[in-house]
C-alpha cells in the first residue's frame, strides 16, 4: 500500500485500533487533518483548547485502560498540551500525543509556531520521538504505543515535521506487527525468592496492613487484589489513585489514607508491623513526615518500576513486577504454605482498628442550613446508585468526593492525583463519556477549577456528551482558603473569587441545562431531575457553605498519628504507649 506521511499517521492509528483522536488543527498538521477528512474509522474529537484534548484523551484512557490519542499542531498547540501530558505522566496514564512540527528545513530557525517540542516535553513524558523521515512514521507510531502501554504506562510524544506528511509524496506502508526495543524490557514476573520472603513476612505478621495504589488499577489487578486481601483478612487502605480497586464496601476496607485519609487508615499505618505496599509509590501526600512513617513496620513493596522502590522509603522486601502477576504468585504461595495467618493476633488488631473507626472521622454537620459539600457528594452517590464514572478537578471537592463517594469498581474514579491539575475534570469527563456512551458520567468540580477548562462545554454540545457537572460553589479556592485559615492566620490572600459568572446562564448559552441549588432540602430533588435528563449536559451550581474544611487532615511535615480531626470527633491519640 502506498500512502503519504499524513495518511500513514492516520492509518497507523487505525491499525492500532484507535477509536478516537482528540485534537485541534493548525498549520503544521494540516496534511494529517486532510488525511483524517478522507476516512471515517478514526473519529476526531475537536476540543476548544489543546489542554482539553490531553485531559479528554486521559479520561478515555483511565476509564478504559486503552491508550488515549491526541493530535495537536506545533508551537502553541504543543505547549498547550504540556499540562495534560504532565498530568498523565505523574499518574502513569498511557497517551500517544502527536505534535506537528515546522518543516524540517526550518527547525532551529525560530520559524512561525516553532518550539522544541521534544525538548519541552522531555521531563514530563515516558519517552518522545522526533520523526525525521516519512519511512519512519509507522515504526515510530508502533514504538510509541508499545512504550506508552507497557511496563509503567505513560505519555509518549511523537513530533512530526510538516514536510514528511506531504500528500504528494507516497511511500510503501506496512504497519509493524511487533516491535522490539533492545533497551526497553519491563519486568513482568516477580522474583520467586522475593515472593517467598514476602509471604513469610506476611504470615508472621501480628498487625498487618495492605496499602494499595493506582498501580493496581493500571495493571487491571482489582480481582487479584480482592482475592488476596480476602484470603488473608487483612485491613486494606487505598491511595487517592487506587480507590475502587478494592470495593469500598468490603469489610477489610479502611478507606483512603494520607493527608485527608481516614483516622483508622492512618493510625493503622502508623501502628502496623507489616506493610504490604502494592502498586503505590509512597507519595508525600500519603506518607506525611517520612521520619515518622510506619515506624514499627517491615515493608514489602510490589511495583513494576524499579525506581519507585526505595525512592522515598526504604523497604525490606522489594518485588519488581506487574502487580497482577505478583499477586497471583503470592496467592498461590500463600495457599501452598503450611503456616496460616495468626488469627488471634489479627483479631486483636481488628479490635484496635474498629476502636479507631468507631469515632467516625468522616463527619459533618447534617443540620446545617447551608448546603454542605459532603452532603451533595453523598446525595450524588445515592442518586447514581454508586455506579457512576466520577471525574473531578482539584481541591476540596476532590477530597470530599474521594471521602464520600465510595467506589466499588476500578476505573470509576478519574482524577488528577499526582500533578493536581485544576481544569482536568470536565474534559476528562467528555473522554469518559465517549468511551462509555450509555454510562452515567459526572464531574465534581468547584467554581475555580471549572473555569480553567470551561470552554470544553462547547465540545460537549458538539458531540452530545450528556455529562453532569456537580459544581460545589463556595466562592473560594477552597483548599487554598483552608490552608490560609490554618497556616496563615486566615489571611485569605487572593483566594476569594469575585465577579463569578452566572453559571446557569453560562451553561444555557453553551446550549446546555443550568441549575442553581442553594437549599439542602433541594439537593436530592435537583440531582434526581438532572440525572433523569439522560441526553442533556446539566450544569449544577450548588451554593455551598463557604467555610467548610476537609477533615481529617495531616498537616505537611506531620506523621500519620498526628491528625487534625473535627472538634466533635474523638481526640487524636498516638497508640505508641499501648504498643510499648
Amino acid at each position, binding site marked *: 500500500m502506498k500512502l503519504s506521511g499524513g495518511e500513514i499517521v492516520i492509518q497507523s492509528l487505525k491499525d492500532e485500533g484507535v477509536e478516537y483522536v482528540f485534537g485541534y488543527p493548525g498549520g503544521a498538521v494540516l496534511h494529517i487533518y486532510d488525511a483524517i477528512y478522507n476516512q471515517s474509522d478514526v473519529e476526531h474529537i475537536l476540543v476548544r483548547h489543546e489542554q482539553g484534548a490531553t485531559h479528554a484523551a486521559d479520561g478515555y484512557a483511565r476509564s478504559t485502560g486503552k491508550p488515549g490519542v491526541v493530535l495537536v499542531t506545533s508551537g502553541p498547540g504543543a505547549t498547550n498540551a504540556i499540562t495534560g501530558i504532565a498530568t498523565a505522566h505523574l499518574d502513569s496514564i498511557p497517551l500517544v500525543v502527536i505534535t506537528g512540527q515546522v518543516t524540517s528545513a526550518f527547525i532551529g530557525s525560530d520559524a512561525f509556531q516553532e518550539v522544541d517540542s*521534544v*525538548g519541552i516535553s*522531555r*521531563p514530563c513524558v*515516558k*519517552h518522545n520521538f*522526533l520523526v525525521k523521515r516519512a519511512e519512519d512514521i509507522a515504526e515510530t507510531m508502533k514504538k510509541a504505543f508499545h*512504550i506508552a502501554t507497557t511496563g509503567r504506562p505513560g505519555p509518549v510524544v511523537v513530533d512530526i515535521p510538516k514536510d514528511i506528511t506531504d500528500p504528494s509524496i507516497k511511500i510503501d506502508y506496512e504497519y509493524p506487527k511487533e516491535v522490539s*526495543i*533492545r*533497551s*526497553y524490557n519491563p519486568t513482568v514476573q516477580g522474583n520467586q525468592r522475593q515472593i517467598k520472603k514476602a509471604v513469610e513476612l506476611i504470615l508472621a505478621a501480628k498487625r498487618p496492613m495492605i496499602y494499595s495504589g493506582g498501580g493496581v488499577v493500571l495493571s487491571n489487578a482489582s480481582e487479584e487484589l480482592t482475592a488476596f486481601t480476602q484470603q488473608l483478612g487483612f485491613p486494606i487502605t487505598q491511595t487517592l489513585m487506587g480507590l475502587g480497586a478494592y470495593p469500598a464496601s468490603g469489610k477489610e476496607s479502611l478507606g483512603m489514607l494520607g493527608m485527608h485519609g481516614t483516622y483508622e487508615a492512618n493510625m493503622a499505618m502508623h501502628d502496623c508491623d507489616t506493610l504490604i505496599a502494592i502498586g503505590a509509590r509512597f507519595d508525600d501526600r500519603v506518607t506525611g513526615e517520612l521520619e515518622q512513617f510506619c515506624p514499627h513496620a517491615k515493608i514489602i513493596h510490589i511495583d513494576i*518500576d*524499579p*525506581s519507585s*522502590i*526505595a*525512592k522515598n522509603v*526504604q523497604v525490606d522486601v522489594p518485588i519488581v513486577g506487574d502487580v497482577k502477576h505478583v499477586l497471583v504468585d503470592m496467592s498461590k504461595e500463600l495457599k501452598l504454605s503450611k503456616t496460616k495467618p495468626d488469627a488471634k493476633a489479627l483479631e486483636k488488631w481488628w479490635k484496635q482498628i474498629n476502636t479507631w473507626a468507631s469515632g467516625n472521622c468522616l463527619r459533618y454537620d447534617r443540620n446545617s442550613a447551608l448546603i454542605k459539600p459532603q452532603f451533595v457528594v453523598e446525595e450524588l452517590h445515592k442518586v447514581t446508585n454508586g455506579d457512576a464514572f466520577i471525574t473531578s478537578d482539584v481541591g476540596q471537592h476532590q477530597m470530599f468526593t474521594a471521602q464520600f463517594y465510595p467506589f466499588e469498581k476500578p476505573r470509576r474514579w478519574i482524577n488528577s492525583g499526582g500533578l493536581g491539575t485544576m481544569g482536568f475534570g470536565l474534559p476528562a469527563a467528555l473522554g469518559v463519556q465517549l468511551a462509555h456512551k450509555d454510562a452515567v458520567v459526572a464531574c465534581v468540580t468547584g467554581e475555580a477549577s471549572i473555569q480553567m477548562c470551561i470552554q470544553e462545554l462547547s465540545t460537549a454540545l458538539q458531540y452530545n456528551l450528556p455529562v453532569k457537572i456537580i459544581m460545589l460553589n463556595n466562592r473560594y479556592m477552597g483548599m487554598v482558603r483552608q490552608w490560609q485559615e490554618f497556616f496563615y492566620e486566615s489571611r485569605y490572600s487572593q483566594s476569594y473569587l469575585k465577579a463569578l459568572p452566572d453559571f446557569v446562564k453560562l451553561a444555557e448559552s453553551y446550549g446546555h441545562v443550568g441549575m442553581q441549588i442553594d437549599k439542602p432540602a433541594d439537593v436530592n430533588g435537583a440531582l434526581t431531575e438532572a440525572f433523569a435528563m439522560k441526553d442533556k449536559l446539566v450544569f449544577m451550581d450548588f451554593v455551598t457553605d463557604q467555610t467548610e474544611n476537609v477533615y481529617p487532615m495531616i498537616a505537611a511535615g506531620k506523621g500519620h498519628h498526628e491528625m487534625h480531626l473535627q472538634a466533635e470527633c474523638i481526640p487524636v491519640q498516638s497508640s505508641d504507649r499501648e504498643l510499648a
Partner: protein
Amino acid sequence: MRHIISILIENEAGALSRVAGLFSARGYNIESLTVAVTEDASLSRMTIVTSGSENIIEQINKQLNKLVDVVKVADITEGAHIERELMMVKVDAKEAASRDELQRLADIFKGRIIDVSDNIFTVELTGEGEKLDSFLKALNDVLIIETVRSGATGIARGKKALQI
C-alpha cells in the same frame, strides 16, 4: 561518595540531553560527563562522575535504566577499575628557565609537550584526576594560559564488561 557511572546508550540525537536533563531535574550532581561512540556505531558510551549517598546513587542507577534510550548502566566504582582523564595545558614559556622547568615536570608526570608555537608550549597529560591536579599545582611558577580536561572515563578490570 564519588562514583563513576558507565552508560551504554543508543547513539541517537537527544540521548545526551535525556541523561543531562535527568540529572538536573532530580538535583543529582555531575562532576564530569564524557561521551563518544563505541566500536558498535549504534551505541555511545557515556561516563558520568557523580557523588551522593548510597540511596542517591541507587536512584541514579534506576532512573538511568528507566530512560528508554539507555541500554545498560554500571557503577564501575563498585569493583576494580581503571580511571583516566586527559588534560592539555597551555603555558607561557618565554624564559629559558621556565622551558627547562616545564620539560622536567612533564617528564616527571609522564606528560608530553605536543605543541610549541611562539614560545607557547602545550603539554598533554593522562592519568587519574589527582595526578592532573598535582601537575597543575607543580606548575605554579609557570604562567598557565589555558587548561582543558576531558573529564574522567573508566573501565572495569578483567572480564567484567559493559556490553549487550
